[in-house]
């Protein structure tokens, strides 16, 4: 019987880098040129199935990017198992903002949190301001996963989420909790079937 896991994921990053667009692509395989800005945060879920039929359900908090909302973020990353920190490859300042979020996560979030740095809007490569080398080098130094995506074309989107799923501790089921994705609860990698788990260590290099 296949194993099912459930993880909390938080999206962080400057306003308009495409966090909501990225989740919409991942969850509904859709894209809108114009969507309302996020206020507070939006909650979505999506399940990915890995090659060995293990399923990983992501409970996603898509947060608001404007600086003024910064004080709300801890409520959403407090119990997150993984974070996707997004920047826009056509805006170099958005990478600075992403670095600020990463430092905050390293200080304040769960020490085992899996962090992926994600450069979005690769379809706008002609206006690129952040090189792959620069971002990748920073990610390596900080021990983060890294990938580039286009929410518009869909390029790289499922790859980055699948890579995160593989990187999560599927080998070490946490004690079963009744957590239903509530930030106040502590659901890490709950093995819903309480099966002995097989090794799953092929960390991503997307």
């Amino acid at each position, binding site marked *: 019987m296949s194993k099912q896991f459930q993880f909390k994921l938080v999206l962080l990053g400057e306003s308009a880098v495409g966090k909501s667009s990225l989740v919409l692509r991942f969850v509904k395989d859709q894209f*809108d040129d114009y969507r*309302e800005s996020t206020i507070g945060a939006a909650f979505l879920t999506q399940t990915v199935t890995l090659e060995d039929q293990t399923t990983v359900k992501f409970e996603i908090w898509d947060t608001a990017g*404007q600086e003024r909302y910064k004080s709300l973020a801890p409520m959403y990353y407090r119990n997150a198992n993984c974070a996707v920190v997004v920047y826009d490859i056509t805006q170099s300042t958005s990478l600075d903002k992403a670095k600020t979020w990463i430092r905050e996560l390293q200080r304040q979030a769960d020490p085992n949190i899996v962090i992926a740095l994600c450069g979005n809007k690769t379809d706008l490569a002609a206006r690129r301001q952040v090189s792959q080398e620069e971002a990748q080098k920073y990610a390596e130094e900080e021990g983060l996963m890294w990938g580039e995506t286009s929410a518009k074309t869909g390029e790289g989107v499922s790859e980055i989420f699948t890579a995160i799923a593989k990187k999560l501790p599927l080998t070490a089921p946490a004690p079963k909790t009744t957590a239903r*994705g509530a930030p106040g609860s502590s659901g890490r990698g709950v093995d819903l079937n309480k099966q002995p788990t097989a090794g799953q260590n092929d960390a991503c290099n997307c």
Partner: protein
Amino acid sequence: MRSTLTHDTDPLQLIRRRLGKSKSLHDSLSGRASPDGSESPELLQRERSIRTNRRQKFINCLLQEDINMPELRKLAWQGIPDELRPIVWPLLLGHMPSISGLRSSTLKRKREEYASLVEVTFARDRQLDQQIWHQIEIDVPRTRPGVRLWMHACTQRSLERILYVWAIRHPASGYVQGINDLATPFFQVFLSAYVDSEAEDFDPTILPPSVLNAIEADSYFCLSRLLDGIQDNYIAGQPGIHRSVKRMAELVARIDPPLAAHLASQNVEFMQFAFRWMNCLLMREISVRNTIRMWDTYLAEGADAFSQFHLYVCSAFLVKWSEKLRQMDFQGIIMFLQSLPTQSWTDHDIEMLLSEAFVLSSTWHNAQSHFSGR
């Protein structure tokens, strides 16, 4: 779908077109002296006989030389007829004086004042505040996406100017996302004075610039008045919102203990859904039409309604779904609350909500300030 246009930039003149042909009626409303000095009582009489009672009460109230504001508020609480709203809102917000003789000159002066504010703010030799401007630039195309009125370049430029001028003049808050939403009802309501078709589908480029400028200026001043009452929502740390959400949670615990207990058992925090309810005054939860009706009552309630009364409205709004919510788990609750089935809500639904909120506020207002130590 041709719209009747007018080149008159005075919103009061809509009365001229919509409420009858009586010269003295519109002259006294727009604060202009009737040129021949006649009062034409038969016309007024006829006018009266064909209008509904309530609308007539409004008109009578608006026709006073010095409008009885408590009376106007009382009428407005129950909802303002669409065609009178462009006059009543500026009156209730104090943008337009209650004394009819002062109206034209005041509006003219304020519109000039706004024009010069825009000129100074966007003067060529003046640096824009890049952070504020950037946020406004990325939010304006994301404001009411899909609604035709807001897809036109000219409405988007108007909105940019309104938001930027306001932000620069309010450095403690600057521009905060959500304020863009709050500007749109004003623009649509004031636009409706000049067009007969649905404002949301209207192509504003066919309006003369003087009309657009007047709509923009009036929207700016009325938005400023509204925001004056909720500044705390948008300054650093957003203490106004935190306070309102906390009070809302306390109130719900008293008026619907089973719901409060269920939310707590599912680890749902009020902040996770009610933050947006406060930040955007429920505009992301209900239609603009519903919002406009809601604001009739808020404006009638007075300056602090957008923080105080709103909290009772939000509580009544949540409790409305109590039975459903109590069957749901965390995920169900959060997903339900972020896409509520309010699409088909009519004025009647909003009026029900407002009266429930009114009952709550009368019952709990003093008690609340008591138990929250304020």
